[in-house]
């Protein structure tokens, strides 16, 4: 037995062996506030400095509630770090008006909210890219009509550059399209409950979670 495990270790030391889990230790994620979800995400939370895609069919099934604890954490004045400034949260092309009293109930710092309403898709992508790469925004939420592979790659790079968290909301039909996002989640809801499906997770594994919210 002992011998076996040592030969396995030897095998694993071989640089040609790539393990999916190994990247998970690299970057700690931002806790999502939902323990079950954290356990399934590499780094124990939302991957930062990258793009996350959330596929939803209908609005109002909890797609924002899923993010709220993490966004509140990002926009909070952190008293333990005296010299740090809370990041801004940019909303690019939201489908409706984000309602400030409710955001405040969730603990979002309203003085750090930025809402951009671009006139068309190219302006939308431009604004999102600017906000992501500026280094000022902790999170950028966007609702693109279309997001092709190239655009998602650009957003992913901008997020890396600006150390920002991009969250793109897309219809479920987009699940077959390629994307550069580090994390893709599909949120489905029926009368019975909500189902969260991790479609792609860099350094993690796909999973299906029930009744999270």
């Amino acid at each position: 037995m002992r011998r076996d495990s040592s030969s396995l270790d030897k095998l694993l030391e071989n640089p040609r062996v790539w393990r999916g889990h190994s990247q998970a230790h690299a970057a700690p994620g931002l806790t999502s506030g939902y323990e079950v979800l954290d356990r399934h995400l590499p780094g124990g939370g939302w991957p930062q400095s990258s793009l996350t895609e959330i596929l939803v069919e209908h609005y109002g099934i909890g797609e924002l509630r899923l993010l709220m604890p993490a966004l509140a954490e990002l926009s909070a004045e952190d008293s333990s770090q005296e010299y740090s400034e809370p990041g801004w949260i940019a909303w690019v092309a939201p489908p409706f008006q984000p309602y400030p009293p409710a955001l405040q109930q969730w603990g979002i710092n309203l003085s750090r909210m930025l809402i951009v309403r671009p006139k068309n898709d190219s302006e939308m992508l431009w604004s999102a890219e600017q906000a992501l790469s500026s280094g000022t925004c902790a999170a950028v939420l966007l609702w693109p009509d279309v997001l092709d592979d190239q655009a998602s790659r650009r957003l992913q790079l901008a997020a890396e550059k600006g150390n920002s968290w991009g969250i793109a909301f897309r219809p479920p039909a987009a699940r077959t399209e390629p994307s550069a996002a580090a994390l893709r989640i599909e949120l489905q809801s029926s009368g019975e409950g909500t189902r969260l499906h991790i479609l792609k997770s860099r350094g993690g594994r796909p999973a299906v979670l029930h009744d999270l919210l």
Partner: protein
Amino acid sequence: MAAARHHRSSQGLTSQHSLALEEPRAERQAVTAPVLKRLWFCIYLPHLPLEASGPGDEARVVVAEQQGIHRVLLASAKAESAGILPGQSANAALALLPMLRVEPRSEIAEQQALENLSCWLEQFTSVVCFAGPDVLLVEIAGSLRLYGGLLSLRQQIAAGLEQQGFSASLAIAPTPLAATWLAKGGRRACIREPVNLAAALRTLSLACLDWPDTVCESLIGMGVRNIGDCLRLPREGFARRFGPQRLIELDRALGRLPDPRTSWRAPERFCRDYEMTEEQSDRELLLAICRELLLSLERFLLTRQLGAQSVLFSFFHLHGPATQLRLGCAEAERLTDRWFDLLRIRFEKLTLPESVISVRLRGGRTQALRPESGRLRFQGRTAAQGLRFSMTQLAERLVARVGNQSVAGVTTFAEHRPQLAWRPQGLLSGKTGNAALIVRRGLQRPLWMLPEPALLRVDEGYPLHQGRLRILEGPERLETGWWDEDGIARDYYMAVNPHGMCLWVFRNRSRTASWYLHGFFG
């Protein structure tokens, strides 16, 4: 002892007879207060007519009309090597070199060039004076320490002049006239002490003095060829023969009489044109020109410690009205790069109806720049990863491209009516006054709000939205606002539809109790 006595007597002798080598006794006694030391830097631009008409090293001449004949005033180096000399008629010059570009002298362009130079010189000192059509005087005694000493300052000015395409003769002296004469005499003199003035000026020829020809001729007729000869003449006789003005000039040059100068003041508003020799439609080139203009705006603002809040570009066309492009900043700004960033964003979308013949940049309202001391940042996101630009900069960029109405922050407002409980807030308008209204914990408020409540269809008494709604919670009665026109009387419910969408719906408490959708619990 004897030598000393002899020396003193010879001194007495000269002071009786000569103009300059010794100062009059009375004046020496009068000087009791500490004299404010001045140092004048003279920039003499002998080739100004040629250089003001634009850069270019091809063969060209500037001509001026003298008694009905166009004569060459100045020739470029290439033209001179072809044998063209100042004073020739334009026709003769063209015969020598048919390729020659002949330009009429433009005094307006020269004046403009001098003013541009003065603007530029204002970064070195606050005293810039015009002393004739091709001479600029700059007082630098107060600037020496800041610019690292006399030699370093001189080098900086000389390098700047060369970069701007001017060939200048420079001289430094304690009096403005002495500096001017030395520069015109082509001496690269640098005199700090007034006592050394006389010795330096002595060998200068009379041609440097700008005296009328008749005066110079009669002086030369007397065998007086340079300033030193002049100074040897008796004062009274000199004043009688050539007028007291000449004597005063000599005294001023030697620092015996004060020589007050009025300093030139640049206009408070920046406005500069860039004229092109031919129409251009190359957008990259136009951008480069705009950048050039912004650079001079930055210099202009820097000397005044100001920032501009807006700038206006005008692109002039040969036919038709000019195309205008206005840029605005949240805070007064002078850095070229920031303006250029904004310009590039707007310029992409600008349509020019035809090609451009000249570009004008006007600076808008200016404002004193308040230098902000940055906070030390040891931790947090800004320190760890290089911050590319601040929130204000990001907001400016977004506003420039997307429009002012489309970029906003939000704030809450103490009001029971859901529609009125929040307001958009301009990001560029200043401080965010956040009314600390927290909705009571028990109350449910949706994360998404519809701009206007949407009427819901009803099926057998059940409201519909992609299926029949099931009420989860409610009602929450909101009956308020009777004091103005938007009074409401509503019962709000939290409802869910077959897709699992969580809705915020209400029913009016009037007789026609229709259902409305007001938001989603995202």
